[in-house]
């Protein structure tokens, strides 16, 4: 932003303020200790400098009291650091329930973000002021790390896994987005901007642009196109579990265990369906590995999430439905209506 000299990073979220207070405490402790030690060393080094080659200093024997003091005092100060740091960390790792969901997919070397309303961006993310934003992130290839210094937010983005981070922007403006985990040749080019906008302005931005349909309805199209609906029917009991309202519930498996139907489980069930099969069903679903991209998966998940709410009903497969256009620069893998068995 401002290429002039800075000493402290911008504070654009409540967490940033909390963290900077913690930093101040750390700096004070560090300043006291280093000043103490440096001053003592200077003082001793000058006062007790060797004046003649033959002098023999008086032996000072160790003092237990001193040892205990300089063990216990730093320990107490550090326990304050620990507790304070942990409380800020908990704040960072617990997104509020009313947070607005945004999906992030990292790939070498770009960030792709998708809003629930359907807006997709590359290396940019527009968010409204004063509303917590929860990021659900995954990677198409190697490990990346989503880092926004102004909000003091950083979290790794891993392949094959969903991670989350959140922030609540408190100041409008344009802020850095960096990839903080080394990810290959153009690691330093995997950067972008976060735009924090006034809510009204954000609504205008959301309405305009290349939005199109919402994430869930894109997911529904994909659901039809991949012929998922042939088996996962909602009108009558099928060969596969009914997905209506399944998201977030506990599902019993053939092994007798239960698993929460969250993003990770749905993702696994699409890519590796035989890993954890729902009780009462056969292992008949083919794997969709290689046929859906990470973004497609997020759309499908969003669609299945939306099934939980009363609203969009799943009909039969729409004949001749057009494949949903894949955007975001991801090359769509070749699709066939009859998914091939594993490789």
């Amino acid at each position, binding site marked *: 932003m401002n290429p002039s000299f800075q000493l402290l990073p911008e504070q654009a979220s409540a967490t940033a303020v909390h963290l900077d207070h913690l930093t101040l405490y750390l700096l004070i402790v560090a300043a006291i200790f280093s000043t103490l030690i440096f001053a003592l060393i200077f003082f001793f080094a000058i006062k007790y400098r060797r004046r003649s080659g033959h002098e023999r200093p008086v032996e000072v024997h160790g003092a237990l009291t001193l040892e205990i003091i300089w063990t216990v005092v730093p320990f107490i100060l550090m326990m304050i650091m620990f507790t304070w740091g942990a409380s800020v960390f908990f704040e960072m790792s617990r997104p509020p329930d009313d947070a607005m969901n945004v999906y992030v997919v990292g790939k070498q070397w770009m960030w792709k973000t998708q809003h629930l309303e359907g807006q997709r961006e590359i290396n940019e993310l527009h968010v409204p002021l004063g509303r917590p934003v929860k990021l659900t992130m995954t990677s198409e290839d190697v490990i990346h790390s989503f880092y926004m210094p102004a909000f003091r937010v950083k979290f790794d983005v891993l392949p094959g896994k969903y991670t989350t981070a959140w922030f609540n922007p408190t100041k409008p403006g344009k802020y850095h987005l960096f990839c903080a985990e080394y990810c290959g040749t153009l690691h330093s080019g995997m950067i972008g901007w976060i735009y924090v906008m006034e809510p009204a302005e954000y609504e205008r931005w959301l309405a305009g642009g290349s939005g199109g349909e919402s994430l869930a309805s894109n997911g529904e199209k994909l659901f039809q196109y991949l012929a998922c609906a042939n088996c996962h029917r909602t009108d009558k009991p099928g060969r596969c579990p009914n997905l209506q309202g399944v998201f977030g519930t506990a599902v019993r498996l053939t*092994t007798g265990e239960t698993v929460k139907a969250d993003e990770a489980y749905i993702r696994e069930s699409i890519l*590796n369906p*035989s*890993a954890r099969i729902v009780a009462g069903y056969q*292992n008949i679903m083919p794997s969709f590995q290689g046929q859906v991209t990470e973004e497609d998966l997020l759309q499908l998940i969003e669609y299945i999430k939306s099934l939980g709410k009363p609203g969009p009903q799943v009909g039969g497969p729409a004949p001749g439905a057009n494949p949903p256009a894949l955007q975001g620069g991801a090359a769509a893998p070749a699709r066939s209506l009859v998914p091939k*068995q*594993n490789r």
Partner: protein
Amino acid sequence: MANHTLALRHHFDDVEQQKSASTFGMWVFLVTEILFFGGMFCCYTVYRSLYPSAFGHASNHLDVILGAVSTAVLICSSFTMACAVNSAATGAKHALVAFLWVTILFAAAFLVVEMSEWHLLYKEGLMPGFNFTYHDVDPGHVQLFFCMYFAMTGLHASHVTIGIGLLGVMAFRASRGVFTPQYYTPIEISGLYWHFVDLVWIFLFPLYYLIARHLQ
């Protein structure tokens, strides 16, 4: 006299110190070895607790008979190794040489049985990286199981191979009459190494071959 100079190296005060240093050194080395395998056992523990059923399915593709035979062979080799150490301590030179060769023979037999197991797996299409064509339940995690299996048994087999080399050298030196009841530390520490290699297999065998017998 010649034996004595060979036995005591100049930097040690006496034979006793040399012997305890060598034995202690071997124990420290075995601690290193435990950590070496430990990293892999740690991976195994993590993945098996993540994917218990896939590990169960995969385990039943291994031939438990071959596994049991190789375990038995290896235990026998440990026994003959112990006999070899005992013969060295009592100065029975011919028995020492003979027991060392029998141990080597058992070790070689172990490797043969293990290679035949590997060959079977290769033919079945269960060798990741070379021939992996498994399409049944949960192929990804099954592949993970076999990656772990080959990495760990491979590392173990390389230790057996090194052991054969080591025992070969010992057998050669024993037949030259290098060892006496006063000086047989090399035999003793080779024995420690060999028992360690055996012990690792005692862990590998149940963890790979026996975990899902009840499902068959």
